[in-house]
Structures are given as C-alpha cells and as structure tokens.
C-alpha cells in the first residue's frame, strides 16, 4: 500500500496573509453583489431610504419590455460582430508583425497604441471624425468628389451600429494582437521547417500547424473579447447616446440610463442580473467548446 501524502495544514500565518485580501474582496465585491441581488427585487429609486420589495415585478417587466428586447438584440449583434472582427483583425496583425523584419517594433507599437486610449477619448475622436457637418470623413468625401456618399454616420440607424463596431474593433484589436503574437512565438520553428520539407505551402502550414497551436491564445482572446463586447458602454454613451432613437441601446447602456437617469435603480439592477447571467452562460459555452480544440504541446 502506498501511503497517501499528508494534506498540508494551513498555518496560522497563511490565514493572516489571506485575511486582508479576503476582507477587501468581501467588502467591495461579495457584499455589493449580494446586495445587488436583493435590490433587483425592489422598486428602489437609488435616492430614498425607502426600499420596497416587489418580488419578480422587475423581471416580469424585463420579459415584456420592447426596449429591453431591442437592447438585448443590439448587445448580441455587438458581441458577435466584435468577437469575430476583433479576433480576425488581431490574428492578421499578429501574423504580419511576427513575419515583418523591418520596423517590427514600430508596427507593434502603432497597432497597440489605440488600446492605451480610454474608451471615452476614443469615442470623442470617432464622433468628431464622423460628424455630419464638421467631420473629417464627410469633408474628405467632398474633397475627392464623392459628396453624394456623405451620410450622417452616427445619426443614421443603418450606419450608427456599424460605426461603433468598427471604431471598437480599431481600439481593441491591438490588445488581442499581443496575445496572438505571444502564441505565435511559442510555436516551435521546427514544425514549420518539417512541414515545408514535406511540401506544405503557407496556407497548409497555417491551417495544420499555426491555427491548432494557437488554440490556447484563441480561447483567451475569444473569451475576453466576448465579455468585453457584452459590456460595451463608453463608445455608445459618447458617440450616439444610444440613438438615433433606440438604434444603439445595449443592455449596459440602459442599465445605466434607467438606474441613474430614470431613477429606477431596482429595475436597473435586475437588468444587470440578466446581463450577468447572459455573460456567464455565453462564457461557459465558449470555454466548453474552445477547450476541446486546444492542443497541448
């Protein structure tokens, strides 16, 4: 019989080391989260001391509200578009900067630069670029004789959603590029050499070596971009304020608007519970699917 290794007992020291972090985490994460669960069952306006329990009323309203349904639809459009476009562009950039020999660091810095900007600043820049009357984009179209293509990019429901998606991709792609680049640099060069000797062309090498071995990086990037996309707020608040009409309202946007602007903190918190569950479910499904195709080297 082989003796089982003794489980290491926690020393008093360990508990004292963990305690400060645990208390902080409890005070700033666990307690607010639990109180949010409670508030989602109330009609609290966010100001008064009168907090009334109303059962599932907020959730019933969520199920029947066309505004919430529209915001959910927009959230999912944003999320899936951003995940696909951000990762496709990031992977492309990573491959390019991995192979380029000339000005390699310059290109890496340039592509990463938008990540350093705050969403608010980025939103303002794009808002100015796309402004109908004073924007660079319309002025450029005028200058090159394509004035007929001028549009109110952020004021037209057909373009506003696309404009926000493209500007967000521009901002986020550099971040995921860095993760993909790390993944690319972890792939042994010998694999490519061997494939090359066997007559595999570049596309075949990418499909059979690079892509499978990037699965770990891809899991991380897809997860992060999905969570980030579901929470999109800054760009919408600055660029369109949810408009025109209700065209770019997302769940996070109306959580803020109903909670703070419309004095319905209880309803806003119930919406945030829905967003939390949505993020959790999508993330779990993503992990389950993506983990299967990860290759251990």
């Amino acid at each position, binding site marked *: 019989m082989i003796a089982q290794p003794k489980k290491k007992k926690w020393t008093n020291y360990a508990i004292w080391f963990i305690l400060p972090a645990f208390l902080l985490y409890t005070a700033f994460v666990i307690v607010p989260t639990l109180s949010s669960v409670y508030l989602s069952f109330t009609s609290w306006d966010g*100001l008064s001391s009168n907090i*009334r329990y109303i059962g599932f009323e907020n959730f019933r*309203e969520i199920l029947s509200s066309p505004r919430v349904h529209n915001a959910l639809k927009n959230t999912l459009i944003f999320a899936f578009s951003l995940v696909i476009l951000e990762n496709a562009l990031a992977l492309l950039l990573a491959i390019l900067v991995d192979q380029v020999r000339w000005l390699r660091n310059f290109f890496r810095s340039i592509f990463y630069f938008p990540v350093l900007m705050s969403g608010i600043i980025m939103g303002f820049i794009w*808002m100015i670029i796309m402004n109908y009357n*004073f924007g660079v984009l319309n002025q450029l179209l005028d200058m090159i004789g394509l004035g007929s293509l001028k549009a*109110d*990019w952020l*004021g*037209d429901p057909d373009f506003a959603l696309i404009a926000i998606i493209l500007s967000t991709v521009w901002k986020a792609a550099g971040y995921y590029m860095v993760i993909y680049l790390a993944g690319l640099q972890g792939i042994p060069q010998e694999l490519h050499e061997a494939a090359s000797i066997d007559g595999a062309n570049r596309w075949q090498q990418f499909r059979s070596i690079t892509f499978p071995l990037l699965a770990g990086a891809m899991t991380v990037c897809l997860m992060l971009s999905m969570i980030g996309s579901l929470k999109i707020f800054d760009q919408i608040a600055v660029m369109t304020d949810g408009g025109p009409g209700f065209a770019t309202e997302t769940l996070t946007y109306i959580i803020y608007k109903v909670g*703070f602007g419309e004095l319905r903190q209880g309803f806003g918190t119930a919406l945030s519970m829905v967003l939390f569950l949505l993020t959790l479910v999508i993330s779990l499904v993503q992990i389950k699917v993506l983990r299967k195709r990860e290759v251990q080297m």
Partner: protein
Amino acid sequence: MAKKSLMQMATMMVALTVVLSACGGNNGNNTSAPSNNAGSPENPTEAPKKEVSFTLAYATGDPSTKKAIETTIDAFTAKNPNIKIVNYSETTSASYLDWLKTKDAVGQFPDLVEMRDTKVFVDAGKIVELPEDLKGLFTLLPEYSGKVYNAPITGTAPQGIIYSKKAYADAGVTELPKTYDEFLAIQEKLAATGISPIVVGGKDIFHMGFWTNYFFINEVYAKDVDWNSKRTAKTASFTDAGMVQAVTDYKELFSKYVDKGWLSTADNQTASILVSGKAAQLFSGPWMFGQISEADPSFEFGFYAIPDRSGKVNINALPSLAGWSLSAEGAKDPDKVEAMKSFITFFFEPEQYASYLATVNGIPTTTAEVTYETGEQMKEVLRLVSDSSVNKYLGLANWFGDNAIPPQFRNWYYKLLQELVLTNGDVTEYMKKADAEYDSNVKANQQ
C-alpha cells in the same frame, strides 16, 4: 431689418419683476407670492462671522452660466472671507441628474444645489424647504405639496426661433410670420435658397424637448392644461386628435426642414452651424444668445416666438420647480444654513443679480427691481414674458403636482419621436406605443 449696430446697441432697461405676474392662471399648480421682506436686499441676512464652509453645485453646461455663477461666488467669498464655498460643479446639463445621484451615492450631496428635479429629491428627503426669510425675495414661488423648495435662479425662459437675418434677406423674407402656416412658407423659401432651414441638436436628448414642447403647447396644453394628469388617470390618450396633430406637425417639420445631420449634432454645435451659414434658424432659448455672439460677434440674428395656426402666441414660460435648494444634510448645521442664506441673499442683490442676468440672458425672479443691459433679442424675450396677450404654459416634463409625468418617460418619448421621423412611421401607431409605455411607467412608479 434693423442694422447690426442698432441690434447690438445695448438698451438699459428696467426688467420689472412683474413680468412673471402676467403668467396667467396657475393651472392647478400652486404658487405663492409672500410679502415677507425679512431677507430682502434692504435688510440682508447677516453672514455669521465664524469660519464656516459649505459645498455648492450647479449644472455647468452653458459657458455663460458657469462664468456668471463663478463670478458671483468669487465676489461673495471676497466680501465674506469667513465663508468658504467648496464648488463641486463639474458636469453638463445633460447629465446633471445622473451626476447629482452619483454625488449622493458617495456621500457628497452638495449643501447648496441648483435643483432641477425638485420632486425627485424632495420625495427622497434630500432637500428642505426654502427658509422663510428668503421667500420675500421673489415674486412667485411655485410650491410642491404646499411647500417652497427653490429660490428660482431665473424665470422659465421661453423658446423661439433664433434666425440669421442674412439668410432671411437672401430668401426674400421681409416679414416675420403671423401664423404657423406662414412660418412653414418661410421654411420653403429658405430651403429654396439651398440652406438648411433649421438646425437641431438632436444628439443631446434634452434638445428634442424644445420642438416637442412647441407643438404640445399649441395643440394640447393650450386646449387643456391638465392633459398630463388626465393621461395619468387614463382619461386622455396620446392618440387624442390634438396630440396626433402635434406629433404629425413635428414629423412633417423634421422630415422636410431640419438639417440632415440633426441626430449627430450636439446642442453646443448648433450655434456654430448657425453662424457658419449652414443653417438659417435654431429653435432654442435666450441662453444661446451669448454663445452665438461669442461664436461670431458680427453675426446678425433675431428672435421671435412662432405663432400657432390661428395666430395666437403660446410660450413655455410659467414658473417651474427649479432653483437653489438647501440639502437636508446641510440644513442640520445652523451655521451652514446662515452662510447659505447669506449667499442666496447676495446672489439676488440687484447689483449682483443684474450682472448675472446680463451674462446669461436671464429673466428676473426677484421683487426688487433689477436693471441690466440687454440686446435686441433679449428685449423681445422680456416683451413676450411680460405681454399678457401671450399665453404661458410649461413643457411636457416641466409640469408638476398632478400634472407631473413619470420622470423616466420624457427621454424615452423624445427617442420615440426620433425613431418615428427616421422610420417615417405611422403617428397613431407610435402614439399607441407611447400610451403603453406611459402606463407601464406609472405602474412601475406606484410600486
């Protein structure tokens, strides 16, 4: 058309505070005009001599308002070195309510606050009644639940057409419209010259209220001032003939005569678009006069209220629940209360208040006579406010008491109207949506 030099010639005018007494009936909303002069400028409240500090906040969106209030604060603290004012103000009008809520959430609700959502903060117990000895300073003080909570900073400013005199001349417009149909005919003439007739700052949702209120006042409130309370009681509907007419007119105007980029134009860009000659008119209030003159001092513009179809002039100018308010927390400290009362008294002293009103193009609210310089456009605003033949009302979200609408409805409704114009939707169908949302909001607020 008057020459620029004439237009700009400042007229020393006595803006008698009786202007607001011409504001018709109280429409179910009580107002009081106390005669107590204990805190009047002739007998100003003495500031406490011990060191005291209080926090203050106001909406800083309008540059001229910011400048005027900062000047008053500086003058007050220079005169009362023992009183320190900690100025929290840092946000725009568009997000002022959100910002105040955030301040409250972090325990920094200002001791003295410019209040724009009185009902909300009274119901939450965040502000207290205006001290009795300050009430005598003002001609009219609107009440909420029988109590006065605000020292009105300025009177409700009516909105009207701010127009480019050059654009009107270029379009051959020689006379101002006497009816709404004549106003539409002017829009046709302007459009024919290739200029955008009207600029709208539709990106800022509050700006959408300007035109909405114009049509609502003419087609709904002018016929029934208690329409809002009837809607709450479900005895009136957004599908009523008057309301459908108002929204149909709104849709027609926005579809035909409003600048194409209106949905991505912010309120603070409208002055630039007007002075640049891209648009001929802006429907807004006197607070824009300063911004326009600052954007181009040589720009010649005029102001008028658009009449309704029958030629009557109805404007948004009744007193509303807004102004300086004392916080419940700040009111617990008698020294702070005295300091805040001193500030309010100082703020409304004729010399100080005149300078404030001249900077912001405001309408006086005090019993004491205020004399200040004003331009041609502001003269017209003051004439409208004091003219008893001009009917005064409030906008959709400014009514109070039984006529208050659910606070969350306003912005939703403005967005609905944007969508209606964008999708060329059916007015009655959209108004059915408005009825459903309104009832849902009322129900939610009763929980």
